[in-house]
């Protein structure tokens, strides 16, 4: 059964699942750069408010620029990041920003998860680990350089666990990796999932399960929209044209200078001929057929 379903997911020799996963990668990459742009811009604002100075402004501008470039040109970004380890360049950029940032901790903490997100999309697990390690070193670079403890610090509010920022970074990498893996598996499993649902298998609700397992109207033999619409009379066409343009049946009756029951009877006849259940479906079938002509 699995191979039969796999063939059905194969549109003319091309694996749609593979194409979908590729497309998903592009969308996910764009999302990652979007998150990086937001994080970099807000972190720059915080850094400047915290007395970060011109260095923080330059670092923030560079990271925001990189993120916006990836956001607006995701295909180019994907091509540039395709070589293995290219994401390390981004991680190194972040690490440099962290190490140059002479505060107690890096001002650009929020950018790290976004970089990890990008690394998850474009890299394999070993490179991902390398990216997290490089980002983490930058994260804590200034602490190492100044000889601070990597675990604890004392703030005005008392003892603070610095190590939780390492945990944040690793946890973020883990969550994003799980999310992307989940989506990839979901797409790869679409054929069997949908086939199960068509056989009345599990769905979120019983009503949805019933709707999916019902044979679609469009699949009935000889029931293509154009064929079904061809049998409509001129009067029915006139009514449907007006309904498609956004008129209510009552308005269509006034426009055509006929009684409302006449319009309703045209609609009922058109529904019968096309096999539509509702007025909305009827107009949809009509639009599909007339667009195809």
């Amino acid at each position, binding site marked *: 059964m699995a191979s039969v379903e796999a063939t059905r997911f194969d549109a003319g020799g091309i694996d749609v699942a593979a194409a979908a996963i590729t*497309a998903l990668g592009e969308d996910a990459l764009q999302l990652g750069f979007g998150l990086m742009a937001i994080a970099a811009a807000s972190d720059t604002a915080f850094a400047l408010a915290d007395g970060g100075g011109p260095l923080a402004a330059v670092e923030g501008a560079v990271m925001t620029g990189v993120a916006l470039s990836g956001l607006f040109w995701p295909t180019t970004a994907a091509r540039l990041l395709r070589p293995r380890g290219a994401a390390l360049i981004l991680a190194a950029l972040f690490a440099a920003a962290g190490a140059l940032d002479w505060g107690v901790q890096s001002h650009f903490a929020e950018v790290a998860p976004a970089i990890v997100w990008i690394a998850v999309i474009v890299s394999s697990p070993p490179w991902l680990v390398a990216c997290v390690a490089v980002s983490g070193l930058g994260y804590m670079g200034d602490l190492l350089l100044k000889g601070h403890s990597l675990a604890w610090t004392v703030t005005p509010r008392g003892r603070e666990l610095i190590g939780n920022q390492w945990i944040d970074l690793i946890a973020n990498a883990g969550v994003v990796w799980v999310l992307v893996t*989940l989506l990839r598996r979901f797409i790869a499993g679409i054929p069997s999932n949908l086939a199960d649902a068509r056989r009345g298998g599990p769905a979120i609700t019983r009503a949805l399960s019933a709707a999916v397992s019902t044979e679609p109207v469009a699949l009935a033999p000889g029931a293509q929209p154009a064929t079904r619409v061809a049998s409509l009379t001129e009067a029915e066409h006139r009514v449907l044209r007006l309904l498609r343009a956004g008129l209510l049946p009552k308005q269509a009756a006034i426009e055509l200078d006929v009684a409302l029951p006449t319009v309703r009877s045209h609609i009922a006849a058109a529904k019968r001929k096309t096999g539509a259940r509702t007025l909305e479906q009827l107009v949809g079938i009509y639009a599909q057929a007339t667009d195809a002509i």
Partner: protein
Amino acid sequence: MRSDLQRVAAHPSRPGHDSGELMVRGTDLVYLTEELYLRLFILTLSLTAIGAVLSVCFGVLGSRGSVPVTVGIAALALGIAGAGLRRPRRAYIWLRRSPLRQVSPAAFGAIAVLCNGPDSPSWWVALPLLWVIAAVSSTGLSVMAALVTAAAYLAGTALGGEVLVRHGDAEILAAAVALPANILIGRLIAEVFARFTLRLHQLQRRPPSPARPIRVTVASSTRVAPNPPTPTPTHPITRARRGLMGLTARELEVLLLVSDGLIQAEIAPALGISTRQVERLLASARARTNSATTSQLVAKLVSEQVVP
């Protein structure tokens, strides 16, 4: 990356509705989108369980909050997450049923951060609970829930005798801001991937062949005008990005079921929402697309190939 997509798009033997396309109608896409939401919901429940463990770790290792209260809240959160993970479909539908149920995880999170002292470690429970809301609810409701939780976190800190900004350290304010910010990110992720799923059928389609440009030739001329370059076929995904008409994933789900001939009384139980919510989604979709009637909107979706 793009070559596979172009091969799919340009392949001559495009299967039609009767020749084995997998996603042949709106209901199929709605089913897949709901399955995706369910998986995201399971992920957020797992994160709630992890957050509960982390809150105990930070409560014990750090010097914040009351350890017994932190442990009690974490145990309760673990129990809720465990119950949800045991029967995820039932839990998902239960939460989807009404806005009041949808915000119930936030109510628990808000009470937790309010009662557990200043800079509460239960923040780690409240955050994933807000993600749960992001997986089942709308952006507006999710953000509102996050703002209430953030306010409760700040109120809990203030009631515990802690100042919100001391000697320039705005860590507590940043943690409060992080709640709505994270929820917005969660909604963004859910929306992007739901919209991606709702246009999966476009990968099955061959884009319409571009019309030949009209060429005017002068009879006396002996030179033949060079052939104009053949326009590149439209990238299916790029076309899809333009073609969703600014509708949200939830609105699209309802409209896809409408286009398949389901009435509101059938759509509501299929999506596990009330008929009032269905009406509201349809009204906002009509407003977004400047459509006078739902029929006109369905016709527009068909023309834009948003409907399979």
